């Protein structure tokens, strides 16, 4: 009975992960299977309603919306992943080093992080990408700057409490170097929390990319990005609402999925707060 129950629990959780994996895989490979060229303008077919030929209809320049949604997923989600990876590569090592060294260095470092965290991250991202000028690269930079602090802080606080434990002292008396201790004995401990925060954050990052693109600071036309597509469709909201609804649903699904996965992981790793 117990085995059956365990297998069942494992299966329902694995099922979720398989579905999520499938979703992201679909996003990655979808652009290979677009029925039409997402950039092909065709003024004879503008603002068409959904039909067999154009599954989601066409936009104000006659481009196939279905193809643009598929391609846009790669842009939005791919950029989100890139941002997340850079944030982790910056925030985690800095947090570890700061927590491990401690003392004065740690105090100064925390004040720097505090000054970043004092502003809502959306404001920082808008200001930075506004100053640097609208482009995808600047958008990535802006979001990384806005986000890295919270990871550094999380990692730093975990390391601060972990490094007082005896196993770290033991590693020290066994003659391991600080680098070895950080990498092999503390990093795996920190990664659980970081993973949860990252999956929960992924949805927010997607939203941020879409929002910044929506106000024209991110992806530039004709790049099919979900937020930018929302922006382009605003003048036609009354005549062709599907132009706005469909990219909106795409964004919502991706954010929802990443939040659900984050919740599952949080329960799994038992992270509080």
């Amino acid at each position, binding site marked *: 009975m117990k085995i059956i129950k365990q297998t069942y629990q494992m299966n329902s959780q694995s099922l979720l992960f398989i579905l999520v994996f499938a979703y992201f895989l679909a996003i990655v490979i979808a652009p290979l299977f677009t029925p039409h060229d997402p950039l092909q303008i065709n003024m004879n077919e503008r603002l068409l309603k959904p039909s067999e030929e154009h599954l989601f209809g066409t936009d104000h320049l006659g481009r196939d919306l279905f193809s643009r949604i598929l391609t846009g997923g790669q842009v939005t989600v791919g950029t989100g992943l890139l941002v997340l990876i850079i944030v982790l590569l910056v925030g985690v090592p800095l947090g570890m080093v700061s927590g491990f060294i*401690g*003392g004065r260095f740690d105090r100064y470092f925390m004040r720097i992080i505090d000054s970043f965290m004092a502003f809502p991250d959306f404001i920082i991202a808008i200001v930075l990408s506004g100053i640097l000028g609208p482009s995808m690269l600047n958008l990535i930079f802006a979001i990384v700057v806005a986000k890295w602090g919270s990871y550094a802080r999380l990692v730093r606080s975990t390391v601060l409490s972990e490094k007082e*434990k*005896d*196993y770290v*002292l*033991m*590693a*020290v*008396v*066994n*003659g*391991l*170097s600080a680098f*070895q201790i950080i990498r*092999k*004995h503390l990093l*795996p*401990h920190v990664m659980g929390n970081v993973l949860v925060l990252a999956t929960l954050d992924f949805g927010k990052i997607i939203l941020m990319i879409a929002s910044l693109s929506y106000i024209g600071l991110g992806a530039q036309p004709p790049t099919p990005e979900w937020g930018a597509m929302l922006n382009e469709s605003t003048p036609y909201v009354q005549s062709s609402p599907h132009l706005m609804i469909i990219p909106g649903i795409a964004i919502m699904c991706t954010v929802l999925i990443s939040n659900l996965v984050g919740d599952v992981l949080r329960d799994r790793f038992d992270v509080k707060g």
Partner: protein
Amino acid sequence: MSLLTVRHLHISCRNKPIVKNIDFTVRQGEWFTLIGESGSGKSITASTIGGLLPKEMSIAAGHVLFDNKDITHLSNKEFQKLRGKEISYVFQDYQSSLTPFMKIGKQMDEMIQAHCSLTKNERREIALQALEDVQLPTKRVYNSYPFQLSGGQLQRASIAMAIMLNPKLLIADEPTTALDSITAVHVLEVIANIKEKINCAILFITHDLRLARKYSNTIAVMKQGEIVEAGTKESVIYHPSHPYTKRLLGAVPTIKSSTSPAKLDLILQ
């Protein structure tokens, strides 16, 4: 021949003296016991030897000589070479003294790698031999995570790690305090056996006189950061001169101060 000499050691914490004028010598292959109540500075003294003093504490005066070298002010890098290879530690808290998500074999392997350049198989041999020395089921423990072992097994595993590279000095900081008395005796026996085998000196820190009595060659009694009495086991236990030592002896359960040495011996055993 003296292996470890501590000379006039003063340690202070933000200008407040913690350890005052400590003087003792541990000879090669000797079991030296440092005994005293909590907060008497025993563990701080032990930390100083391996260069493990907390940041807010510092050596105000004195020297630590190990193997005829002054190791009082070594750099971190030099201490790193010494720790685990020449001087190794066993601590009280066995539950958290091994990294929880790493197999014990992996941790042992990593430690050997940090000190010697050996092949994978040679490292494995050394680790398995050490686990055998502490009477653990070698293969099983080598492939276990710390939470899969019992308290006594864990403590023996950390002893195995400590003695793996044949250190000259094993510092055992209350290794049995968190264990039940039967397991504690077993762990002590393991340490005693290993001492015979690799002929290392042992700096044993405890507050339990009964444990000090059994294996020690030399005993030093510490109180409030000072050594109040030191000498051979016989002189300290049977002919205590300092009032604190007498009180300590008097505090052992069921022993009255009027108890004769022969009777005391019986009870202590």
